[in-house]
């Protein structure tokens, strides 16, 4: 064993270069390293290799960076200028030979480079990844360690308003595409040493940075561990958006309901963190995931808490009603007009009969046709440029509604039903939840068209069963309604006054239960 070890040491000096290259470690010799990067340049036109001599010495050095990703000001003023022009006399030609490469390296690191974030790297893959992410690599001849200098100048948008979750009162700042800025937004608004950012890299071909944020000492450690484990288990090419991640880590991918909340509002994330939940930030995505979630969270808006509690409560009820209507109204209409005429008021029955006189289709087909039209209009309005989109939806809505009635394809009451349904479905503050209710609506409609009210009830049961069986990261999805946590109900049935909400949601089992002492 010892003998073998000795043998290897002996060999090492001889074949050092070769072996290092085999291991993917960079060499002492700058030429070897340069050869590696030059070969890369054939495929990466934007790669820049700048070779130079340090100060007045003969020491060769070079910087490697991606031309479009870096802040050239930093490279020119704080790296190249410092190394070439402002190099101290003491370390100039005369003394150069007496200085070992290692000492030179340390001196450069400690005194010369005016760059904030400097790391050391020794393997090609590491350096390459850094270069691809916008760092600059500095290599000095005779040293098998390279310096990774943070010169990233990411292409990004300025901070902007929220797109999909707008509030009237409260900040409308939204997350943007860059991870660092998103982290900054959180740090900035949640100044707390317990705020933990745990980084994981996901993706086989593209390493995507994923940050798991939580409040240490508040979030249940088992929950945090579970989130980390699930993310570690992901094995895929690339994470393009947090939507990818969501689909890989949710509990039941077959379920029509989202099991993680996505939001672009920092205040929502911070509120969740303060309740003991975990947020997942993905580089490149302005949408942050929150886990675990309960069904009701999709029907709540941060504004509920910004407004005073009475309007907050009323608006919340309104939204619950809107969710119910957007799911069930067309099917209730179908069930009552083609099965249970006896259950609607006489006067209404008479006027429905009169308006439906001459409509050739059964109510179900009529509803399907109109719903379909609305969905297409919505989709078209969404994908088109903003200005055109609005015209399309307004014109389309008016024209289709009016002329369908004129042509006798749909009855006026059906148009009203469909319009109310559409408006109600837009009142749901979370887009992803709105989508699921929207396509479940078609399922309810077919149940209602088959067996009327009985089918409606059975569908309601089926959906409720699915929801009570569903879990988000092991936490019941319908909590706190099932299982009942009487404490938490005041934030579900009402929006209790803030001073009444003294405890965090019990269900998450946060380490610290008390949110505030009463005033």
């Amino acid at each position, binding site marked *: 064993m010892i003998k073998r070890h000795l043998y290897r040491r002996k060999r090492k000096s001889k074949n050092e270069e070769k072996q290092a290259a085999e291991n993917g470690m960079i060499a002492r010799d700058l030429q070897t390293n340069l050869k590696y990067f030059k070969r890369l340049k054939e495929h990466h036109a934007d790669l820049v290799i700048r070779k130079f001599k340090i100060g007045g010495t003969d020491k060769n050095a070079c910087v490697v960076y991606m031309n479009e990703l870096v802040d050239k000001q930093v490279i020119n003023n704080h790296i190249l200028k410092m190394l070439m022009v402002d190099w101290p006399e003491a370390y100039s030609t005369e003394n150069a030979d007496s200085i070992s490469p290692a000492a030179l390296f340390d001196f450069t690191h400690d005194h010369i480079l005016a760059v904030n974030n400097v790391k050391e790297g020794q393997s090609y893959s590491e350096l390459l990844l850094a270069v691809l992410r916008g760092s600059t690599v500095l290599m000095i001849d005779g040293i098998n360690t390279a310096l990774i200098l943070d010169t990233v100048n990411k292409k990004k948008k300025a901070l902007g308003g929220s797109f999909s979750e707008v509030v009237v009162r409260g900040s409308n700042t939204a997350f943007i595409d860059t991870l660092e800025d998103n982290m900054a937004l959180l740090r900035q608004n949640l100044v707390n040493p317990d705020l933990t950012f745990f980084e994981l890299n996901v993706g086989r071909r593209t390493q995507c940075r994923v940050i798991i944020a939580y409040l240490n000492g508040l979030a249940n450690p088992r929950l945090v561990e579970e989130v980390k484990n699930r993310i570690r288990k992901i094995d895929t090419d690339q994470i393009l958006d947090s939507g990818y991640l969501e689909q890989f880590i949710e509990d039941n991918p077959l379920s029509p309901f989202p099991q993680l909340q996505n939001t672009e509002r920092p205040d929502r994330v911070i509120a969740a963190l303060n309740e003991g939940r975990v947020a997942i930030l993905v580089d490149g995505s302005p949408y942050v995931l929150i886990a675990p979630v309960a069904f009701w969270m999709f029907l709540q808006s941060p504004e509920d808490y910004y407004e005073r509690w009475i309007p907050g409560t009323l608006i919340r009820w309104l939204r619950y009603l809107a969710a119910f209507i957007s799911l069930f109204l067309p099917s209730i209409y179908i069930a009552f007009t*083609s099965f249970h*005429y006896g259950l609607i008021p006489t006067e209404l029955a*008479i006027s*429905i009969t009169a308006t439906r006189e001459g409509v050739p289709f059964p109510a*179900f087909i009529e509803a399907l046709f109109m719903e379909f039209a609305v969905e297409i209009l919505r989709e078209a309005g969404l994908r088109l440029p903003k200005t055109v989109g609005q015209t399309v939806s307004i014109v389309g809505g008016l024209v289709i509604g009016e002329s369908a009635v004129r042509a006798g394809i749909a009855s006026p009451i059906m148009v009203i039903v469909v319009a109310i349904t559409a408006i109600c479905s837009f009142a749901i503050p979370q887009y992803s939840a709105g989508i699921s209710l929207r396509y479940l609506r078609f399922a309810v409609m077919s149940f209602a068209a088959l067996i*009327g009210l009985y089918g409606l009830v059975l569908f309601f049961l089926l959906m409720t069963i699915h929801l009570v069986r569903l879990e988000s990261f092991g936490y019941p999805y319908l909590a706190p309604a099932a299982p009942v946590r009487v404490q938490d109900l005041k934030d579900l049935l009402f929006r209790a006054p803030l001073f009444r909400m003294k405890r965090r949601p019990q269900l998450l089992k946060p380490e610290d239960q008390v949110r505030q002492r009463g005033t």
Partner: protein
Amino acid sequence: MRWFLKRKRNIFIIYLILSLALLTGCWDNRDIEEVSFNLGIALDQADGDIKLEGEPPVITATFQNLAPKVTISGQAEIDFDNISITGNTISKISTELALLNPGTIISQHLKTIAISENLARHMNLENLLNDFQRNINTRISTNILIAKGNAKSVFEKNLGEKGNAIPALKILRIIDNDDFSLRLLKPATLAIVGDRLASEQSFLLPRVQKKGNEIVLEDAAVISGKTKKMVGLINSEEVNGFRWLVGKKGGGRLNIFNRKNNLIFTIQIFHMSSEIIPHVRGNQISFDVNVYGEGTLIEDWIENADAADNRFLQKLEKEAEQKIVYQMRSVLYKLQKQFRADVVGFGEALRIKYPQTFQKVKQNWDEMFADVPIEVHADLKIRNYGVKIKK
């Protein structure tokens, strides 16, 4: 079996799809415009010979069905059809109706059943209404009335009228005036009639008639709980007395027209209540009725009227109380002596106060009722006299 359990999710999904496929029948799915709503039924004695009980009864039923017409402009208009059919039971008639009516008859919106006086006098109401009670499609909130003369005529289209108001519904809207006029009687729903018939109590049904072109609600028919037939009529003035005796909440106008004392005035009653107190001494049953009312003086044709003077108001009150007592006496006389039918609920009062005694007399209560002494007292207060004090 093991395989089955392993694949249970798949099996389950297959089951669901299968059951959905089974469901393509859509047995009960029928669009609302393809059925025809039956809104009212008028029951008449069939033309020709009058059959007596025991022989097959002959009924003409007139169904008022909703039949919207599409006008040339494409707009649908509410309209109705009347279809008359003669048969001997209600079910038989409705079976006949299916032979000629476009669309299935849906009677869930049946609002009004008008029975002609003739029919009600000869036909056991329990049998006549049995179809509606048993049939799940008829709600027991359906209203029942007696029609003077030909019940069918009540449902006929009023040609002089603009639009197509449906008579079956229009009748019900007249009844909304019941807190304006004491002469109006609310029609009984099938539920109430069912209750009275089941417990063999007598009851009143309002009577509707066609006067000229107008539907008028006037008088009331007395239905005997024993024979379950109509036994007679009380007039509107007596309906007044009946409503005082029952004392349900509501109100109406009390008109006093006393030429002798030159007292002509009207009181709007806004509160009325009554209390029936049974007394049992040995085998002797008697009743006290205390009626209490409050009202506003709304019109007077009296010379030198001075509402600021309490004596004047007391004079009016006394006059009004006499009138109320007179009205109650006259209806009680008719009910006790002429029809022998307790429609007011004296039996109920006795049942509640003296259940044991009532059990004994329950069998022929209506007969006993005819002879029980009843004392009536009225107490009326004029609370208000509008904004005019003196003449």
